[in-house]
Structure formats: structure tokens, C-alpha cells
């Protein structure tokens, strides 16, 4: 009995179809239901943004481009750039030390990383700002003495609030960057170093042309994480009253009590910076995966392709894909093809 059934069904499945078979996709009803609920909740929230007057969009608009806010924004960006660039340069040196065969350099880097990952960044900034209390004068003089200076400056004139924050953030960032870069370097196959050495490539070429570009593939995602984090991390500057973005809006709402609208000003600016950085990250990562994977098309390319495909389908369903439509989609496709390369 069973045997007969099996024979039958096999017969049916191998039967030559008269037309190409139609494929019916599985429908995911559960997913549809969950999506509908989520969309409803989002709509409700968006509606409240408009309807709820406490958000104070008027105040938001008034301050979004105000001088104080833009100055704060500039300060935030400036501190981010300094600490990220400085941090990654020092971090690269530390990573190389950590990987070197010299026990001394290794230990120096290990202790540096240990120290700066241990001390909270707030404490560090405060110490730099108040360094004048520990060391009233900085300069060049006879070692281990305190009275003979070739030249020196009062510490407080060197370590302004800006310098204290910039130095603190940079040294802090260097410790974290060092570990990220080291992780990237050790992820590169040892055969690469052997091949480079066998060719007699100088150390510098080996590191910058062979190892680092390959390490970059695993360094970049974590690295951009650090940059995005640092944009907000600069808000530690409030501890020495340095007006970056967040401190600036705090000062303003301290005066006018419009807390929510001004926090929104800061949040939206942060979101804009993060968005820009995310896009930059996407393209930088693409650049560094050259040659190692078949790159998927960019989202812009995919969006254009989807629109043209949809256009095509609509034309077909009408039963009359007009020549005008076809030629238009063709041009779009060829244009995006070029872009994807």
C-alpha cells in the first residue's frame, strides 16, 4: 500500500510539465502581523511628536542654528578630529610596540594601555586641567632638580581647558585604538609577512602597503564605532566648562528652562553627525575590501535598480511596455552599472 503511494507521487513529480512550473512563495503571516503592530506604534509616536506641544518645535527651530549651538558643534567636531587622529596615530605606535619582539617596548605599551583604560576619562581631564597644582612650571631643565631651567612656562598658561580636554581624550583614545589596531594586525595571515620578508621588502613597506591595508578590514568597523562614540564622548568637556555642543545647550536651557527642545537640538545634531559618519564608513570599508570579496552593490544602486524593476513590471502588467519606458530603464541601468564598479 505504502509502496504504491510512493511510486505514484514519484511519478507525479517527475512528470513533464506542459508549461514552466509556477513557484508559490511561503507566506509569513506572523511577520506581517508583527510588522503591522510596529508600524502602528511608530505612527502613534510620530503623531505625538507633532501633536504634543511640550516638544516645543518652535524653540527647537529658534536654537538649532543659533551661534552658541553652532560654536558648540564646531568645538565637538574639532575635539573629535584631534582626539581620533592623535589617538589612532599614537595607538598605531603602541600596537607596533605591543607586537614587537622587544620586551621593553612591549611592556611600555602594555602599561600605557593598562593605565589609560583604568583611569576614568573625567578624572584624567581634571588632572590635566589642574596639573599646575602638581607641577607649577613645565619646561626643559636639569633632570631631577627643580631650580635650574633653560626655559619654562607656567603650567596653567599651557594647559587651557581646551588643551586639557584634547590631551585627555587623545591619550585615552590611544589606549583603545592600540588594541583595535593590534587586533587587526594579528588577524592578517602570517604568510603575508613571510612573503613580504622573502621578497626583501623594507619594514616600512611591509607594514604600510601589505599588513595595514589588510588589517584595516577588521580595524575599520571597530574604528568607526570609536569615532561615533567619541563625538558624544567629547561631552566630558563640561567638567572644565568648555562649551562643546552638549554643554552649550545645557547653558541655554539653564537660562530659559526649555529643557526638552534644547536636548532635541543636541540629539538631532548628534544624529546628523552619526548619519554622515555611517555613510562614510560604508564607502571606506568598501574601498578596503577591494580584491578580497565580490562587493555587493551599494544601496543607492540597489534602490535605483528596484525602482527600474518596478517600473518594468508595471509596464508588463499593463500588457504594453512602451518603448519610452524601456529605453529609460536601460539608461538608468547602464549608469548604475558604472557606478557600482
Amino acid at each position, binding site marked *: 500500500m505504502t509502496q504504491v503511494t510512493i511510486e505514484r507521487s514519484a511519478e507525479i513529480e517527475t512528470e513533464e510539465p506542459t508549461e514552466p512550473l509556477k513557484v508559490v512563495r511561503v507566506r509569513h503571516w506572523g511577520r506581517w502581523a508583527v510588522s503591522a503592530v510596529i508600524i502602528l506604534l511608530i505612527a502613534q509616536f510620530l503623531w505625538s511628536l507633532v501633536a504634543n506641544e511640550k516638544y516645543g518645535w518652535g524653540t527647537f527651530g529658534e536654537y538649532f542654528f543659533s551661534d552658541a549651538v553652532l560654536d558648540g558643534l564646531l568645538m565637538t567636531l574639532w575635539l573629535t578630529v584631534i582626539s581620533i587622529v592623535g589617538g589612532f596615530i599614537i595607538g598605531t605606535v603602541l600596537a607596533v610596540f605591543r607586537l614587537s619582539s622587544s620586551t621593553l617596548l612591549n611592556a611600555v605599551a602594555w602599561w600605557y594601555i593598562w593605565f589609560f583604560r583604568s583611569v576614568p576619562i573625567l578624572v584624567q581631564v581634571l588632572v590635566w586641567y589642574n596639573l599646575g597644582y602638581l607641577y607649577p612650571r613645565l619646561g626643559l631643565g636639569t633632570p631631577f632638580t627643580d631650580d635650574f631651567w633653560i626655559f619654562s612656562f607656567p603650567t596653567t598658561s599651557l594647559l587651557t581647558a581646551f588643551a586639557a580636554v584634547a590631551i585627555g581624550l587623545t591619550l585615552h583614545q590611544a589606549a583603545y585604538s592600540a588594541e583595535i589596531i593590534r587586533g587587526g594586525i594579528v588577524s592578517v*595571515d602570517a*604568510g*603575508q609577512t*613571510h*612573503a*613580504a*620578508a*622573502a*621578497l*626583501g*621588502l*623594507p*619594514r616600512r*613597506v611591509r607594514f604600510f*602597503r*601589505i599588513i595595514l*591595508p*589588510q588589517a584595516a578590514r577588521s580595524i575599520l568597523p571597530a574604528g568607526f564605532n570609536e569615532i561615533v562614540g567619541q563625538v558624544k564622548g567629547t561631552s566630558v568637556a563640561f567638567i572644565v566648562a568648555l562649551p562643546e555642543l552638549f554643554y552649550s545647550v545645557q547653558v541655554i536651557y539653564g537660562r530659559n528652562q526649555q529643557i526638552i527642545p534644547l536636548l532635541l537640538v543636541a540629539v538631532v545634531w548628534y544624529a546628523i553627525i552619526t548619519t554622515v559618519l555611517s555613510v562614510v564608513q560604508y564607502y571606506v570599508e568598501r574601498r*578596503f575590501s*577591494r*580584491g*578580497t*570579496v565580490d562587493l555587493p552593490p551599494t544601496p543607492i544602486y540597489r534602490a535605483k535598480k528596484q525602482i527600474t524593476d518596478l517600473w518594468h513590471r508595471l509596464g508588463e502588467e499593463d500588457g504594453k511596455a512602451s518603448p519610452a519606458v524601456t529605453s529609460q530603464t536601460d539608461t538608468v541601468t547602464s549608469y548604475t552599472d558604472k557606478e557600482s564598479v
Partner: protein
Amino acid sequence: MTIIDSNRPDPVDDAAPTVGKVEISHLTKYYGANRVLDDVSLTVEPGEVVSIVGPSGSGKSTLLRTINHLETFDAGSVTVDGRYIGYERRGDTLHELREAEVLKRRAQVGLVFQNFNLFPNLTARENITIAPVSLKRLSQVEADQRAMALLQRVGLHDSEKYPAQLSGGQQQRVAIARALALDPKVLLFDEPTSALDPELVAEVLDVIRDLATVGTTLIIVTHEIGFAREVSDRVVFVEDGRIIEIGPPEQVLRNPINPRTRDFIGRVL
């Protein structure tokens, strides 16, 4: 495939090659307590093709890597044309050379790896030009021209492909072209076809066979017994870091004197 190389004397109407002599004498190396090379002595004449066979773990790779000073050793000496790669001899002492000098001398010896080790972030052409350009042997333009000629010589036509876009056989041929870019006097091959699919082995062996005819000294570690018999002037059998038997391919690969060689050949054939 024919090879035309203007940089080398034509083997047909010219005298025997004069450069590329490798002398290994009483070489001993330890990894910790493990003696990987045990009093190895071997002289390879200019232009000679020597194959090294032996079981896995017997020290073949280590031996090759000591020849171009990628590995240090504990006793003995290795010279190429009478000069140490990593040391300078003054009187009775060997002085370790500075890195720049080692790199320059190492360029006389090319090494081709089992798993190619091409630089994946560089195109085939860039893989070949990076060494001559960064060692200031050639300008970028000259190096590019040379790369094109070398690629043609190993039978490749698309110079702008990245390694990941090439088959294993093509990658290994680019790796050989890369090793040739510095005009080495000696070329070392460490199991150049072991990582290849069977149908790709022949194309790589073809390239090596052509090199064997133009007068470069070749030292080839291989499990391709048939190939070794065909191209080699001499075959060396190593086991446990020692040279067990050495002689013409007909002897070592067909009628080995040493029972251990016979045992090994019986197993791999």
C-alpha cells in the same frame, strides 16, 4: 610555452651559468629541544635543478627558509655565491648584518610558497612591481613593463585582477612571476603544487619546467615524483632533518640504495 628572457644567457649557445651556487654545510637548527635540521650539507651548482623529497615534518621547509635567511640556525653555514645572506664574515667570526643589507642580499633568492601568499589587496601587476619599486631597482614605469613581460611569460594576460579573482594555478603563476621580478640567482619552491586542484598542477609545473631550462638555480621541494624525475639534475631525500640519500633522479627515485628512501618512494608512488 616558450620562454624568452633577455636577462639571462641563452643556455643553448652559451657556457654554463656562473652564478647561483648554494653551499650548505653542517647546518643544524633546533626549535626548542626539537632538532629540525641535523648536520645538513649540500652544494648546489650554478644552474642546477635539485629536488628535495621526504616525509612531512622532515624539515624541508625549514631548510629552504634558512637558505634565504628567513630562519636563523644554530650551527653550520649557508652561502649563496660564497656570501652569507644574514652575516658578514670577518676573520673567524660572523657579524650579523643590518636589516637593509640582509634585505638586499635576500633578493638574490626567490621563494615560492605552497599557498602562494600573494598580497590580496594588490592586483597581479602590483604584486609583481612592489618589490623592485620599493627596493629602488626599477621605476614604476619600468617595473610595470617588466611585470607585463613576466605575466606573459607565465601565461597570464589579465594584469589588473586581484588574487581572489584568479584560480589557484593562476595565483601560483603570479607568485612565480613575483619571485622572478627581482632577477634572483636562485629560486626556491616549497611544494608549489600541493595546494592546487589536480587539474591545475600541470600549468604550474609547465612554468617551472621552463625555468629549469634557462639556467636559474632551482631548489624544489615537491611530492610530484614524476616531475622531480623529469626536471631534476639531482634528487635529495631527507628524513628527520637529515639527508638520507642524494643522487641522480634515476637512482634516488627508481633504485634507491637506502631502504628508507625505497620505503618512502614506494608509499608516494
